[in-house]
């Protein structure tokens, strides 16, 4: 991608005094922004422990992704699609399979970077029809994982706000130790694109593509009305 960002190349007032002043302002702004980000993160993490849709892993380590999208469907319809965890691979690019195991639990297999397969067992920790689904990994897995999806009616006739929160953390000293560094770069973007495709399927009934037929990957969402 080669988008020209003119902002970085356009010195509006290329005057030495002003440049120094601008640099100083930028430094202060960065410092202030950094401090704000730190305090905000801490506050969020404290809040995590009190809410079932804000899954937190021990010590707040790992990757934390939060994304929201508004979809022109009712909370009940959208909840229905997510409720069947076995169908999560249709919604989330990197989840290869979710298979039910004993005691209401499920075995997850995720494709990690460079073809690595990561697996763990998860249990549902919240299930409020039309509102919230939350799950987290249990026992000894390759990755400590927790996730949730919340459905909130948007104001007016704007549909439903769907918020997905996912956290991944490597268990101490295990193979997944590099997950954060390998995966962290793209996790946010992956979730954003996953949600975009979900929205397209639920609203338009198909995923937009400009690729020619032979190379287009257009999996359909089974059972969509």
């Amino acid at each position, binding site marked *: 991608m*080669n988008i020209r960002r*003119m902002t970085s190349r356009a010195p509006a007032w290329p005057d030495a005094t002003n440049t120094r002043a601008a640099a100083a302002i930028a430094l202060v702004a960065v410092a202030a922004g950094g401090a704000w980000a730190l305090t905000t993160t801490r506050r969020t993490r404290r809040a995590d422990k009190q809410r079932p849709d804000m899954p937190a892993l021990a010590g707040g380590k790992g990757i934390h992704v939060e994304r929201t999208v508004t979809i022109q469907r009712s909370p009940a319809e959208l909840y229905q699609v997510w409720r069947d965890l076995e169908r999560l691979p249709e919604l989330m690019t990197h989840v290869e399979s979710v298979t039910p195991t004993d005691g209401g639990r499920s075995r997850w297999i995720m494709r990690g970077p460079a073809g690595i397969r990561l697996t763990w067992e998860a249990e549902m920790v919240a299930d409020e029809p039309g509102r919230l689904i939350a799950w987290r990994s249990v026992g000894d897995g390759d990755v400590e994982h927790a996730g949730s999806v919340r459905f909130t009616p948007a104001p007016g006739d704007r549909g439903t706000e769907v918020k997905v929160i996912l956290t991944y953390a490597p268990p101490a000293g295990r193979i997944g130790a590099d997950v954060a560094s390998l995966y962290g770069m793209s996790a946010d*973007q992956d979730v954003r694109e996953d949600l975009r495709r979900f*929205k*397209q399927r639920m609203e*338009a*009934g198909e995923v*937009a*593509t400009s690729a*020619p037929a032979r190379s287009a990957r257009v999996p359909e969402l089974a059972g969509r009305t």
Partner: protein
Amino acid sequence: MRALTWHGPRDVRVSRVPDPEIVNPRDAIVKVTATAICGSDLHLYNGVIPTMRAGDVLGHEFMGEVVEVGRGGAALRAGDRVVVPFTIACGACWYCREGLTSLCDNSNPNAHMAEGLYGFSGSGLFGYSHLYGGYPGGQAEYVRVPFADKGPLPIPPGLSDEQVLFLTDVLPTGYMAAENCGIRRGDVVAVWGSGPVGLLAMKSAYLLGAERVIAIDRWPARLRLAESGAKAETLNYEECGDVVEELKQRTGGRGPDACIDAAGMEAHGTTLDAWYGRAKQAVGLATDRSHALRQAIQACRKGGTVSIPGVYGDLLDKFPLGVAFAKGLTMRMGQTHVHRSLRPLLEHIEHGRLDATFIVSHRWPLSRAPEAYRIFNDKADDCTKVVLDPSA
């Protein structure tokens, strides 16, 4: 099939490319019977729109015959004669339901690129860079049309291709530009740029009740067309020293009630700030030249409306926001919501109230498209609008 492909600034060629195929259920394939070069294609031609790739098929003004329909494109049948909106819209998202189809949430597969640049993405467009979806365009023998059950409008028999071809873009664009002016009885509307969009904005302004329309340009042929085809008064900015003052004088000191910038980011001008804008654009310091827009803001009467159908791509400097604020102006802009005005405009055409064919200056075979781009870009041969025949 044969198609007009982009290879770099001022380098377009007629090439052989693979035929399009149905990909998604709601797709249709249209055999193009007529296609036109748009003024905004010249932005691509000149290389000022980012994310173009060598081999991209251009063209977003096209119509033709449906030859194949996906299993979800129920509204259309093979054999239907249709015009195709240049904006691709799903018809189901909140924006589409509100009639804001050029802001469709679901039709740009490269939405992340637009989000990177603008924070949000509008709809996908045919043949208009990867930023807008990378969809192959309509200056070709065949086109794949996504969401074909929502976009293409079947055309009743008895109307020629040329009578309805401009429903795809320039006619709704000119119309929306005039609509955005909120025209009331007695209004004087000034239009910068007498290209096809400007000319059709002038006609639409009269249709919507304007009392007087003033066309501003520098090309005598275009000004003649504004006079003869759109019944506008004309103002040649190269001959009149101060456009803003001249407009004031022509409107009893008030200024036009509404001003339309149908020139956009490659606007020409002769004043110092116009040359400054050109120089900056030439060295890559700013993507947009804003000369026409600046004049529109300065000329508009207090409390008036500035409507911007002209395309802007990125940042703008020397923008007289203080003037706009001091005069309490309303500004309206954006890509055209083609779908919502298709039927009303078709009705105007059928009843003889609106005829856009006067903008056509050249009817050429697709094989001569590269030459057509050159003369259109150079405003040579009094070129205002080229219609291409893809079969020739």
